[in-house]
């Protein structure tokens, strides 16, 4: 019976594209080989560690994507994080109906791993297919976009001591894509707000605040203008707040938050808001700490989570070993924390932030002259020392 189980597991492994990132055998395949008494010249896992090996789907992406994803893998290996990577290529392929579709491999992989790390993707223009982000979001109900914005020591901006988190509803709101031309020259765009989605993101916000020792959750809205839609969102937030009295809850208008954010961002902690406001505010906060090149981001869903870098593919420096892997690395750290592997995440984050603070080995965008590999090696060195 055990043998049958192992055979079944082995066949499942074989059905997945064999594009291993590390040259490391999957866990179950290893066990099968052992049970078949093959010469064990394969690497042994110490399953005596605190966590079993977990598989994560890696989407390297385009442009600088492959370089920075390799950097993240190297750093994870240096830290000994119990992660194996399953690389998936998401270039759209032409289906039998003539339309471009995403390859089935990505859905299969994510269905199994339920955890993804995504590099930057080039947006093909005029290829006639739905965007990957939209497809992934729908497939795995990724309802909350989380972006922690913390000032990075060693990367100076006019704003110091920023330490806030924006949590944005990711599925509806202004981005529902429901638009009509009513008559020629008159267009209506529908903003959809539902109680289910609002409550869900509010509950996640309070859970996040509790899990990460944050003291305040602020709902951002424009209920004075959009009283029914933002009013409903606010009502859900208030209801969830009343069940989470250990966390302080405040509510502010969007324009007031923007005004105060650029004057004194230290007054904000966790912000929760609908889709459009979240898009704008999260980018605003990224601008406060230094831009998208150093900002992590995570999409949390009911059926899994995908963490990603939100910067572009930088085609002008792709392949030249000049890229900065910080954003993808910090997103990967977020992922480790989400997977309850926080101690590895803390070590990696500390090494990365120490490297930037010391300022000796920095990539070009951070003000230095080092290559991506040198920067990565320095972080690995710090982890292992």
């Amino acid at each position, binding site marked *: 019976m055990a043998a049958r189980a192992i055979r079944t597991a082995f066949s499942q492994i074989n059905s997945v594209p064999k594009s291993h990132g590390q040259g490391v055998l999957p866990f179950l395949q290893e066990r099968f080989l052992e049970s078949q008494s093959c010469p064990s010249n394969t690497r042994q896992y110490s399953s005596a560690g605190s966590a079993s090996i977990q598989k994560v789907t890696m989407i390297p992406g385009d442009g600088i994507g492959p370089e920075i994803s390799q950097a993240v893998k190297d750093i994870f290996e240096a830290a000994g994080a119990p992660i194996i990577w399953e690389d998936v290529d998401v270039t759209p392929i032409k289906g039998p109906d003539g339309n471009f579709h995403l390859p089935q491999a990505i859905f299969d992989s994510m269905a199994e791993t339920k955890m993804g790390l995504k590099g930057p993707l080039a947006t093909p223009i005029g290829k006639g297919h739905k965007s990957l982000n939209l497809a992934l979001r729908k497939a795995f109900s990724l309802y909350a976009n989380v972006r922690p914005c913390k000032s990075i020591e060693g990367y100076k901006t006019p*704003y110091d001591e920023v330490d806030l988190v924006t949590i944005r509803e990711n599925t509806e709101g202004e981005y529902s894509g429901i638009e009509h031309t009513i008559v020629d020259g*008159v267009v209506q765009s*529908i903003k959809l707000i539902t109680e289910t989605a609002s409550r869900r993101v509010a509950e996640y916000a309070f859970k996040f605040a509790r899990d990460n020792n944050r003291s305040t959750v602020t709902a951002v809205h424009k209920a004075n203008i959009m009283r029914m839609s933002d009013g409903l969102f606010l009502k859900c937030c208030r209801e969830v707040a009343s069940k989470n009295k250990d966390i302080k809850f405040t509510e502010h208008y969007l324009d007031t938050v923007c005004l105060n954010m*650029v004057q004194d961002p230290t007054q904000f902690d966790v912000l929760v808001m609908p889709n459009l406001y979240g898009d704008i505010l999260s*980018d605003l906060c990224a601008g406060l700490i230094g831009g998208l090149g150093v900002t992590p981001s995570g999409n949390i869903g009911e059926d899994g989570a995908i963490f990603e870098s939100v910067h572009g593919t930088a085609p002008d420096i792709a392949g030249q070993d000049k890229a900065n892997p910080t954003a993808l690395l910090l997103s990967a750290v977020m992922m480790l924390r989400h997977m309850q592997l926080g101690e590895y995440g803390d070590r990696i984050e500390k090494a990365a932030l120490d490297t930037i603070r010391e300022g000796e080995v920095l990539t070009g965008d951070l003000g230095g002259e080092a290559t991506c590999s040198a920067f990565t090696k320095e972080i690995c060195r710090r982890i292992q020392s």
Partner: protein
Amino acid sequence: MAALTRRLLCNTAWRQTVVPSLSSFGNRNYTINATEQQVLSCAKYGGRHCVTLMTGDGVGPEILTHVQEIFRYAGAPIDFETVEINSSTTDAAYLEAALLSVQRNGVALKGNIETKFDDAEFRSMNVALRSRLDLWSNIVWCRSFKGVNARYDDIDIVLIRENTEGEYSSLEHESVTGVVESLKIITAEKCERIARYAFDFAARNGRKKVTAIHKANIMKLADGLFLESCRKVSEDYADIKFSDMIIDNASMQMVSRPQQFDVLLMPNLYGNILSSIAAGLVGGAGLVPGMNVGAKYAVFESGTRNSGRSLKGKNIANPTGMLLASCDMLDYLGHHNVGALIRESVLDVIAQPQHQTPDMGGQATTTDVIQAIIDDIKPKTQTSLQEAQSG
């Protein structure tokens, strides 16, 4: 002849004329004058203009009282007609009276009216005023102030925002319980109108660049129509550089490099957001004036439309924004001398640390600041009086 005059007036209806101001505000010397059609709407009796005063909520009443005081000392030929409208005057008759007053006088100075959004019956009076008076353009001019503590000191951005449609259409319904739809309406006519206003403003004011802000990658039809209208209008103004930027990128750029922006042209909600960001960058809500202009009427208020509820009665509110708005109003009505006089005094006074209110990092009270401005104005008016008597 009458038909020709009418046609001429209609063609110039929305084209704000601009004359060099007698005051220097940084290195920009321009203000906004009323158009011919707007002048016809302004009530002027015996050389004095009558202006509607809507005190609103929060710190509005106290600051507007100070504004009237300063107008008296400066000798501004303005009579105020105070209409009662605030969050407690919910009867429709108050709104109608306010509208009638503005239609009669042509110009208003306004404090912000709070919206009690938890009350289902309460309609936003600010939105109602703007849409009923068809004040389709909102202009907020954010310039760095001398002597004021801010992260950047070289900002000069004019934010021109469509003021009547978009997300502020107030068209919402609950299809089933727990599912709400809110309509954002974009029309080609209004987009073209605001775009033309912005380019005209830029052309007459020597501004080099107009940037349209949108999210047309996601809202392809609505913001796509806005962007397309702006592009079409930009072809008529070959000397002005036209570019566009997505709203989230624009927010990020505003906090990292705001100096790159010149004139921003935006639909309603994005205008609200970027005006707030820009106002925060130059020193805060208390400093920045704003104006709402239509074909016939103009309403002047604070740039970020805050009521300052938490500051009410404490005598610490910053009167600068409302004072600068009232100076813009004086320029609009053609009283350039007085407008320049008050504006100069206000700017000179707030540049001094001992006259900065807590929102600017200082310790002064509102009355301290007002007294300092009055003290600055008095010698100037006495000089001009002596010159008038001797000359």
